[in-house]
């Protein structure tokens, strides 16, 4: 090929290539949540109660233990699984039992949940049970107006009395 046509051909190949590079670097756009939705997240870390109450060791039991381990109380370390429920209007969107971390399940339980919610007024109820025997001993219910593109985070802070809604 002659020089000039060749140059044209090179440009003809480079231009689409660069256009592709420029295009795919931002387009097509990605919707993390739809424009008419809000983001609802539940995130907390909490240690549940121990599964079994402490028990006094009898004198006979204590005698069997090596002297350095003769603690009067026997406290099994495992914690109960945390029960969590999240209700959105009349729908339960999360129902989960979270086992405590650690080999002996004696650590904290970590909860993270994310969902998109249509913008508007919603009844949001969150419940958590951290004791043996079932049931929920922490609950919080609120009716909130969630704007499109807003973010609601539900945290748990015992110092503030339980669940905290932050937006």
């Amino acid at each position, binding site marked *: 090929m002659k020089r000039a046509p060749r140059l044209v051909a090179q440009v003809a190949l480079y231009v689409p290539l660069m256009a592709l590079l420029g295009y795919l670097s931002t387009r097509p756009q990605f919707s993390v949540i739809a424009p008419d939705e*809000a983001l609802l997240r539940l995130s907390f870390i909490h240690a549940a109660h121990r599964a079994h109450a402490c028990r006094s060791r009898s004198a006979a039991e204590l005698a069997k233990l090596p002297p350095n381990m003769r603690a009067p109380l026997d406290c099994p370390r495992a914690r109960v699984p945390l029960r969590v429920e999240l209700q959105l209007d009349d729908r339960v969107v999360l129902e989960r039992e979270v086992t405590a971390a650690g080999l002996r399940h004696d650590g904290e339980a970590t909860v993270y949940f994310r969902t998109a919610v249509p913008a508007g007024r919603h009844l949001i109820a969150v419940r958590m049970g951290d004791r043996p025997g079932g049931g929920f001993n922490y609950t919080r219910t609120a009716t909130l107006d969630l704007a499109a593109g807003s973010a609601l985070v539900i945290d748990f802070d015992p110092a503030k009395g339980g669940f905290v809604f932050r937006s």
Partner: protein
Amino acid sequence: MLKRLHLAGQWVFLHVEGLFNLAFGEKLNPLYYLGPIAYYLMWVVVASGLYLYAFFKTGVQGAHASVEYLTVQQWYLGGVMRSLHRYGADAVALTMLLHLTRHWCFDRYRGFRWFSWVSGLALLWLVYAAGINGYMLPWDRLSQFVVVATAEWFDRLPMFGGELVRNFIFPENVNDRLFSLLTFVHIGVSLAVLAVLWVHTQRVPQAKTLPPRPIAVTLTIALLALSLAKPAVSQGEANLAAAVTTIGFDWFYLPVYALLYRWGPGEVWGLVGGLTLVLALLPWLPPRRRKGPAEGYHMLVRPDNRIVAVREGETILDAGLREGIAFPYECRNGGCGQCKATLAYGTVDYGAYQPDMLTAQERGAGKLLLCSATPLGDLEIDYQPTAVPGGIRARVWTATVDALDLLAPDVMRVMLRLEGGERIEFYPGQYLNVLLEDGEKRSFSFATAPHVNDRIELHIRRIPGGRFTTQLFERTKVGDRLRFEGPLGSFFLREDSDKPIIFVAGSTGFAPVKSMLEYAFHRGLARRMILYWGVRRPEDLYLALLPRQWAREHANFSFVPVLSDPRPEDHWQERTGLVHDAILADFPDLSGYQVYACGSVEMVEATHPAFTAHGLRQDDCFSDAFRLAARVRSHAPELVRLGGTA
């Protein structure tokens, strides 16, 4: 199935490359330099990144604003740098993926290539880590998405225990330390990319790590144009209190993150981990299409006359380059025809290449492309060196016969004079190929030293029944014209050693020795030199007076003729027997010597093992017949034509 995918991929690559060849020409086709281009772009990214870093404020308050400053106020430089950084990185990802795919399609990832493949995989991870990490830095809406999604993704791994994400969803947890950390990781991983790149190309013989300059220049201009036409911009400052909704998305780096929001983190780990594992094992997975024994094959390379091992699956070009043979090449991808050579013996898999670069006729005439072909047995390859040591180019010359002297009943001295008074430059020991009318060639060593360059002397022995020599002895006259190509060969006198030299000449092997010795005397080399000339009868020492005279004139030279077959009527008083026996009798320990052997294969084959057994080092043994003839399973007589066979 896999094979079909490979072939389909090859088809696509070859056709697209063919299209690009029309525009760029074979030698500057970017598609032949995908690896080197990715490498070059990495440097563009590093350089532009350094500039950005100089202005970047690693803090929650400063990050977004400092990038905005570069983009808006300093658009003409900072903005361009930012865009170069982004588009360069995108182009790295693109070319890297194409490079990977090409190696896969052409089945160039097995065997010894596993090392490049696996280190390439490490690069893939690192490049993605650096790129994704980069999107966290400008602290815009995309950064917010990428940071949170990364935390969500990594929280799936047991070691993070699900707590990572809490650092990124509460504004009070995002602090300046986080930005220092992200920046540190970004720079660290990029440096790791450069380090692993070095490892990656370590084992590729003479790997090109930069594309030819015109490609680099064009590419840079194109990226600059793109940077000006569509500058990279931020997408509004991050706001952890608000949700990220619809964002511009880099599909070169972030597709996995899109998937993360369609599937869950566990599934994405499964996909990415599984894919990595499969890719990592690919070099060892079936179908193993081993083409021969695991230890590979050997090839005799002419004009170097060297035997080189070719590893299983290795191209002839790579094997040669690995051994320092000056094979010509350019694209290494079957697209430029630069590496065309002749297959003189053996069978090969021709590989995939542009059909225009090797036509069916050429293939029929024994041509192949070194960069595409892999051996299917031991081979003999004839190539045209474009650069011999010292850079003297071989070319075709025309000469006239100046004199013909019968030096012995079967040895003719032919003096040639170059037409047009031209002069030829060569190294003592090199040879030329006389071009016959039917396209065949006959090789003869220069018998004159290079400083005598207005005429060329050849010693040609008559081969009974040989076409060319019969014609020469019976019909050629002074004044006849003749075409030859030269100078050729890498067998020449090495001046980088002080060791004494033992020259072993068999029959017309005296010709290159004469050239080397005359050159040595001319240069005044003080090394000790001994010539052993082995022939059958006294009359075969066709120029015996010459070395005898040298021995009288030069104290550092001695001459030992050795006859293998003297008759009583010859009254031969000097040495008899085989030439190498005579040498070993005189020099039981050869470890301090260099040996230059010139003669038939049989002679070299007989002498070489005997010499090495007596301490001669491989590096000190030079021969114009190839060194290990026995390795090539072929019929010897046609193989060696140096020093004068038909």
